[in-house]
């Protein structure tokens, strides 16, 4: 199951709990921005562009690195008094595994493996190989965050399940590009970026549904959730929890609003609580 029974989380990289603690506390668990072995400055600005149906971002895993994270950030996160999930990134299976080992003795509720950042070079190993390497180094619950740009995401889900994953986070952003209408140059400093927002929702729904059929793993669904109805749809497709990403940017009050809308929406469909709707999608799928 989802560690701690969390229902609403933030998507990694979409909230800084230390700068906005009241927003974090309106969620059931806080997921950190992806932590890498070394500090990273991230990608050159501009990093943000609004596009049709959503937005592009090209942050590039800016962060303090695992050493400073453990000393300067994690102790302050614990003061929030809520479950902390740490998102882990790397450029090889060994890097992911060593970062997981560093976290193994810490009071973190789960580790989410960011296997699909569209803004940096990918590790050469497969998702399952990275999960297997991490599994050998930590007993923490391991959630594999997969890319929606995967030909057979159900097959990938089965592979990471066999490799020892405890759950899935679905989905990361899709890679996208936007050109300036006057200069015809990319609107982001790094060229392309991760596409998120409302346009991602049907993609996320299909991925969640495919993986819920392919595996028994609990799923944190995310992608384009703007309303409680969007969250309910992900649960109906098979998610056991829902993460909020882009919606937090315009609306820091989104968690409370979406929680209320989700409960009302579930009740309107005859479900006494939202998770009773899990996997109840009907018809040929």
């Amino acid at each position: 199951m989802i560690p701690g029974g969390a229902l609403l989380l933030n998507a990694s990289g979409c909230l800084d709990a230390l700068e906005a603690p009241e927003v974090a506390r309106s969620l059931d668990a806080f997921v950190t921005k992806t932590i890498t072995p070394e500090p990273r400055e991230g990608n050159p600005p501009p990093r943000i562009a609004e596009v049709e149906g959503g937005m592009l971002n090209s942050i590039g895993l800016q962060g303090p690195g695992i050493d400073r994270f453990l000393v300067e950030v994690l102790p302050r996160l614990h003061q929030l008094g809520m479950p902390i999930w740490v998102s882990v990134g790397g450029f090889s299976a060994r890097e992911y595994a060593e970062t997981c080992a560093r976290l193994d003795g810490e009071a973190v509720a789960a580790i989410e493996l960011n296997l699909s950042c569209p803004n940096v070079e990918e590790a050469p190993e497969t998702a399952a190989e990275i999960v297997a390497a991490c599994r050998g180094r930590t007993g923490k619950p391991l959630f594999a965050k997969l890319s929606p740009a995967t030909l057979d995401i159900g097959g990938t889900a089965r592979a990471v399940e066999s490799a020892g994953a405890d759950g899935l986070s679905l989905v990361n952003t899709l890679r996208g590009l936007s050109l300036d209408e006057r200069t015809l140059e990319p609107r982001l400093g790094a060229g392309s970026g991760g596409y998120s927002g409302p346009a991602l929702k049907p993609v996320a729904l299909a991925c969640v549904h495919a993986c819920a059929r392919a595996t028994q793993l609990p799923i944190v669904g995310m992608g384009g959730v703007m309303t409680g109805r969007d969250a309910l749809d992900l649960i109906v497709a098979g998610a056991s929890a829902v993460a909020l990403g882009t919606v937090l940017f315009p609306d820091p009050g989104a968690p409370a609003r979406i929680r209320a809308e989700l409960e009302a929406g579930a009740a309107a469909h005859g479900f006494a609580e939202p998770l009773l709707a899990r996997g109840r999608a009907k018809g040929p799928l």
Partner: protein
Amino acid sequence: MLTRARLRAVATEVVGPYTLLRLERGGVDPGIPGQFFMLEAPGRLLPRPMSLCLAPPGELAFLIDPIGPGTRALCALAPGHEIGVLGPLGNGYDLSVERPLLVGGGIGIAPLPYLSERLGRPRALLGFRTEWHAEAAALVPNAEVCIEPTLVTELLDDDPGDVLACGPEPMLEALRARVPGAQLAWEARMACGYGACYGCVVDVDGHYERLCLSGPVLRGTA
């Protein structure tokens, strides 16, 4: 507390190529000059960061340059229409200055009317591309105006006093080189305005810092 208020549009006024959007203030704190607000742009996903231009009684007013779909939607707001407003955000100008001189360029004059009011209407130097753009100078008391190719930096005295500025990057870079310690308000694209998105970073001493948290007003060092 990060609470988004819903504020009603009172009116929009044309100021040269720009639009002054006046909103009912509600219970929102106008903040310190140089701080900014995230304004919901109707029909768009992301809000737009705008520094406060004027704080007349019961109102908040923003000077907006309609350069894209979001700013055009804000300039077209009909009176009575409500939008979400988050703020004040970020760090404004340090008002404890002895010899203030305001320097602005183009749409960068936006925070100067409120700043001028709070500092007792000090002298201001404003630069614009055309006479049409310079109509916005009427919002700033005691302003000397120049039009390109003359640049505001050419109007600076050898000892300009405590410079508080906002304008295009080349202007701010020139001021940073010329006037160490000048208070410069920078601009960046932002998705959230409260440190969540990491989209608005600027290079500060060789590191990327979030402008929404560290700025938008930064002290220039040569």
